[in-house]
């Protein structure tokens, strides 16, 4: 099985970090993985997206144009990628930031107020991980087991105290 994931939003939402977590989760499950950021001249702000492929077979092209799973973290991202997702794909929408519903009916849509939920748990930067939790629930890309192993790989040692809150955010999204 191969899952092609696209996470899209604006800079600062943790799009790349969320993707890296997902890729490590796949790696720790002995899957083949790739992670490719869109890179632009800006360091902050602007659009950010990230292609992650998790597969049982070697990954060919690391570029995801037609995702099996799309995480849309702002409206421009949904506008841009909604029609690129494959039929039957999972599309997860941050409904705090995106007021509209999907126009397509041939995909599985999930609306989760991730940004509001993150604020409510007093961790406004963790909407990304809430979205990842929901994504793990609704797709078969990776398992929910042993989350912390992957989290330890992506949260730098200096910030190890943030592992717990990141885990909470993932579980909050997973159980939404």
């Amino acid at each position, binding site marked *: 099985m191969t899952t092609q994931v696209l996470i899209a939003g604006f800079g600062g939402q943790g799009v790349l970090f969320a993707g*890296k977590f997902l*890729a*490590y989760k796949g*790696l*720790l499950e*002995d899957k*083949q*993985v*790739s*992670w*490719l*950021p869109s*890179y*632009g*001249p800006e360091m902050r702000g602007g659009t950010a997206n990230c292609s992650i492929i998790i597969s049982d077979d070697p*990954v*060919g*092209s*690391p*570029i995801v*144009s037609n995702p099996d799973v799309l995480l849309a973290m702002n409206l421009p991202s949904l506008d841009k990628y909604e029609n690129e997702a494959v039929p039957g794909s999972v599309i997860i929408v941050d409904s705090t930031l995106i007021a509209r519903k999907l126009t397509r009916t041939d995909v599985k849509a999930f609306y989760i107020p991730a940004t509001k939920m993150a604020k409510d748990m007093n961790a406004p930067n963790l909407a990304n991980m809430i979205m990842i939790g929901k994504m793990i629930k609704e797709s078969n890309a990776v398992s929910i087991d042993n989350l912390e192993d992957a989290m330890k*790989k992506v949260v730098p040692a200096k910030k190890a105290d943030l592992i717990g809150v990141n885990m909470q955010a993932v579980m909050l999204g997973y159980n939404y």
Partner: protein
Amino acid sequence: MTDKVLMKGNEAIAEAAIKAGCRHYFGYPITPQTEIAAYMAKRMPKIGGTFLQAESEVSAINMVYGVAGAGYRVMTSSSSPGISLKQEGISYIVGADLPALIVNVQRGGPGLGGIQPSQSDYFQATKGGGHGDYRLICLAPASVQEMADLTIKAFDLADKYRMPAMLLADGTMGQMMEPVSIPEVTAKPVDKPWAANGTKGERKHNIINSLYLKPEILEKVNFERFERYAQIEANEVMYEEYMMDDAEYCVVAFGIASRVSKNAVTEARKQGIKVGLIRPITLWPFPKDVLNAAADKVKGFISVELSMGQMIEDVRLATNCKKPVVLCNRAGGMIPSPEQVLDSIKNLAKEVK
């Protein structure tokens, strides 16, 4: 579980270079390869090495020239416009027969171009670039693992043949993360009796120079250098074949283009088209023999490139134009999609029966 870690291609190059014994890095930041410099800036001071951000690419390559002359493993990295600036220094390093590693994580050109991935420095990397008769050993990684493995290989080949080697990657390869395990290097450093590293009063001076005012001598030096090139062409060619056993059509692609092409080849096979892929890993020496042999079996070739078509000339030369060679390309920082390559395969299969 695995001992592999996720690393960006750029970081894998830097760590592999350190493992290979490189303790001297000179560079100047440019997207999309800045992570190499950043990694070196962090690591080199901790392991007794030198990281130096030069005032320009020209300066950096001449620092490489100096350290290479002293017999130490040394590298620089940049992206397309910066590599153009280094060409004079590269030519001097070649002229002085010194080993060094130059990494080019290509972006779109010409001029300042853009910052998105490209393969349009193929001519520059494989046909010269600077002035004079010369070649660079040119390696083209197609995965983060190869970014590491071929960095080590490049240092070894450069030392073995006393010449600079170039790792020719692109923005995608530099920016993407994949699982990688950085190999431990156990080989002993090559003896460099020619190095200008102090006579200790025990031997004559070694002179590092690229100036030969007597044409007879300069001619001889050139001929001798090309004898080494002939050995490299005979012994160091590397390539990967994918589904070529019964192939009727052959895609030729390197780096990121080969990754995209693999998807297309796999899909075309599902649709009943017998197509395979030859991926040059060494761009110089170019895998001429395997392509020439393939030309006797297949009906046509497709060169897939992130350029206006540069490697395609080498494919035509290698195959002596025995079979048609068509181009499938994007340029300026755009990447062909697997669908575009698949369409190209289907068209070729339709037109050349």
